[in-house]
């Protein structure tokens, strides 16, 4: 990818010492791009090695020992008319199981863990990298989200932008909503509880993870806004978690 003309958030502009540089760059590189599912070329080889004896994929694919795998993403389990599936596969389909990314991942890892009596005699692919490469290869033969927006995703979601100060430990903190209710008095001076948002944004029912990420971004001055930088600046990690827990669940 050719370089773009500006480098987002150059470390210098943060006005911090060299010590800060490494973790910041690490955080940036993870937040810059979502992860693709895997390497389709490697996936093609795995398909040839492990799957092609029974399954076909591509323009002329037909059902053989196994069903063809075109449009498998989003397909109802046992969903090809006239193909002889196992009883358990048909039952899964009747119960509403569609082939999502997560389910295909689980099924390829250990088929019988998902569908007890599946006819697919495959021991499973334990290596997650290989599995994701295979899934990336297969994904190319299913609906494109550009044309069918509801089609299964083509990449793995990244964690919300954490900012330099935010670690997984902080995100995992379980806040105490009661403490949050107490602390929220400081917020309600400006932010109306009923969710109306004239002039000041509503923070009512904000999902907790987004709330925590936003407060830490103010705290680290990654987000602009002098008042919010000040307010968030003196909240501890636990206090932010508590506020987030409270605001995520309040009813009007």
């Amino acid at each position: 990818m050719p370089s773009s003309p500006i480098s987002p958030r150059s470390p210098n502009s943060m006005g911090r010492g060299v010590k800060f540089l490494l973790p910041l760059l690490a955080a940036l590189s993870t937040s810059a791009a979502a992860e693709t599912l895997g390497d389709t070329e490697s996936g093609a080889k795995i398909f040839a090695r492990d799957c092609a004896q029974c399954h076909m994929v591509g323009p002329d694919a037909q059902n053989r020992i196994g069903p063809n795998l075109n449009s498998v993403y989003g397909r109802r389990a046992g969903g090809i008319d006239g193909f002889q599936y196992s009883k358990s596969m048909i039952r899964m389909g009747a119960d509403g199981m569609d082939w999502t990314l997560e389910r295909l991942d689980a099924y390829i890892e250990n088929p019988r863990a998902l569908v007890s009596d599946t006819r697919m005699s495959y021991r499973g692919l334990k290596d997650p990298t290989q599995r994701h490469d295979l899934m990336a290869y297969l994904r190319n033969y299913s609906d494109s989200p550009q044309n069918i927006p509801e089609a299964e995703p083509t990449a793995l979601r990244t964690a919300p932008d954490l900012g330099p100060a935010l670690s997984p430990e902080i995100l995992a903190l379980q806040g105490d909503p009661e403490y949050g209710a107490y602390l929220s008095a400081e917020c309600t001076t400006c932010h109306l509880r009923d969710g109306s948002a004239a002039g000041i944004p509503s923070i009512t029912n904000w999902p907790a993870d987004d709330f925590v990420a936003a407060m830490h971004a103010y705290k680290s001055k990654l987000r602009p806004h002098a008042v919010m930088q000040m307010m968030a600046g003196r909240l501890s990690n636990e206090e932010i978690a508590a506020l987030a827990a409270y605001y995520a669940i309040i009813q009007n």
Partner: protein
Amino acid sequence: MALSRRIFLSTLTATLAAPMVMAQTGKPRVVVVGGGAGGATIARYLAKDSKGALDVVLIEPARTYYTCFFSNLYLGGFQTYESLGHSYGKLATEYGINVVQDYAVGVDRDAKSVTLASGTTLSYDRLVLSPGIDFVENAVPGWSTAAQHIMPHAYKGGSQTQLLQAQMAAMPQGGTFAMVAPPNPYRCPPGPYERISMVAHHFKTNNPTAKILLIDPKETYSKQALFEEGWNIHYPGMITRIGPDMGGGVIEVRPDTMEIVVDGEAEKVDVCNVIPAQRAGNIAAIAGVTDGNWAPVHPDSMLSKADENIYVLGDATNQGDMPKSGFSANSQAKVAANHIRGALTGSTVFPAKYSNTCWSLIAPDDGVKVGASYEPTAEKIASVESFVSQTGEDAALRKATYEESLGWYAGITTDMFG
């Protein structure tokens, strides 16, 4: 072809309708071509968030922008034509954007300037192209834009939509309405099918013995199960879809005799809505930023892959997984605005996050939606999570979904035009 500065200054006083454009402010200038979902949004965000630090110029030939979104609801009788129109007045008066009513005809990338139909040349520091779509020539044999007054596409906003509405209203009792649906990719994936629903609703009330023929080159389409379920419930027997297996991909139209020829067989119809294959609006190819039919962009910024001073937004782009929709164009505009301000004013550039939701109305109070969120990967804007309404949902949920769409329309048009 770029005019020299001297010529440019002398034509200025003679021909320029909006003299503000030429004022030498010394500020970095962003020229935005196209005042639609992408262009109006980015002009507004650039002006609003840079607080006067940027000189923002918006070039758009129309005085009023008529949205394509909700134009199907106008066909169904749920919206007035007037409600689709939005003026650029506030962008000029409240946001200080120089709105130039003109048409961009040339881009000189070396000189960093845009030439307008009036002959004026405008220099830029960054150029944003959001020209929407044009149609691929000869995509439907027998049809060309010269025939659009007989067989309207109604796939760009404005008078075409009115024409199609008038033809529907004038259709004889028991007549046949045909639609030729486009191949992928095209703007608004559920758009043709929402239109079929709204046309059917109109006929159910006004012309109950009318027939609708949908000729479709695609095997599957967005929200298919939802539309088919809704058509069976609300409009039983009225709609026939001819998919590619039945010859829906091999079609010819004869505007002179109002015939369509499917798989070699001619049939006379009363109204024919031809939605041809699409490509980026002409100016993108003129600027040399297209590869094939669309303009490739970097997924983290909407910056053209061909020129680091040009951004492309909305339907005209090839970006990856986002559908061509007003919501997408609006979402992309905010990412690009953030990036441009970072480049020109040094403001913070936040990571790109995109989203889209498309609502469709199937019948009164029967609304459905599809949506996804997207993140840039190294190669493209990739879908990372998606959702869609389910078949068999109860009436209350469908009504709530429809009402949500009214809120969205109010929201996005405010986000575009202030």
